[in-house]
């Protein structure tokens, strides 16, 4: 197993299923915690943002999450049918400014950008797709 894919509903409680799957993947791939916690934190930020602000109709929606380990990278893709939202276009928060004065969601994406090596956003056929990449340390994962 070098990748996982799951679809969750737009409810905060559903994030626990993603965390559990990521940890299962980490266990199979023998990844150390230092490769996994940044991914879990980043996914918590991205998913909670979509769940809290992505839909305004109050209806049930699905969010697709794929995580793979390949070529020395952990790659996560999150796809949702919420309103178009490019988190990379959000201004970088002033971390000296009191939290209550920062923009909503600003701290979360700031953390994501700092933990990941690469974050890309695209809007494809009415869906948001966010891709997160982080390099494994040289002695981690995909060992022969």
């Amino acid at each position, binding site marked *: 197993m070098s990748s996982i894919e799951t679809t969750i509903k737009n409810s905060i409680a559903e*994030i626990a299923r993603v965390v559990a799957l990521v940890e299962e993947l980490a266990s199979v791939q023998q990844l150390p915690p230092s490769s996994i916690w940044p991914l879990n*934190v980043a996914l918590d930020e991205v998913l909670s943002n979509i769940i809290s602000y992505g839909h305004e109709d109050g209806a049930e929606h699905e969010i697709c999450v794929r995580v793979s380990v390949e070529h020395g990278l952990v790659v996560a893709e999150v796809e949702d049918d919420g309103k178009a939202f490019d988190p990379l276009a959000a201004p970088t928060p002033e971390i000296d400014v009191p939290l209550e004065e920062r923009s909503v969601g600003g*701290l979360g994406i700031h953390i994501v950008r*700092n933990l990941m090596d690469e974050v890309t956003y695209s809007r494809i056929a009415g869906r948001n797709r966010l891709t997160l990449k982080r390099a494994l340390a040289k002695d981690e994962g995909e060992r022969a």
Partner: protein
Amino acid sequence: MNVHECVIDGVTVLEVEGRIDSLTAPDFEAQLVATLSTAQRLVLDLRQLLYISSAGFRVLYRAVTQAKQKDGKLVLCGLSSTVSELFAIAGFNRLFTITASREEGVTAVAS
């Protein structure tokens, strides 16, 4: 996430174990607010904390604000390298008194 409460030299210490994320932050906040309603000086022992996301940082911000309004004090101790890195990224290392050991935390919060 689990929170255990103990009292050392008259100072309330809350040990947090597990993850503080968008799922567990509401529980964490409820326990922190309940404790702060009776204890004005509090040490949060984060040795067993795996990680904290922005949902948890928001709770900590509200808690430190609440403590300051009541002339109280909140000190953190035992941050792992992971948790320290997250605090630095969020800029929260400057909002709190942070000590290495629980004993130093108890001393710092009492002073």
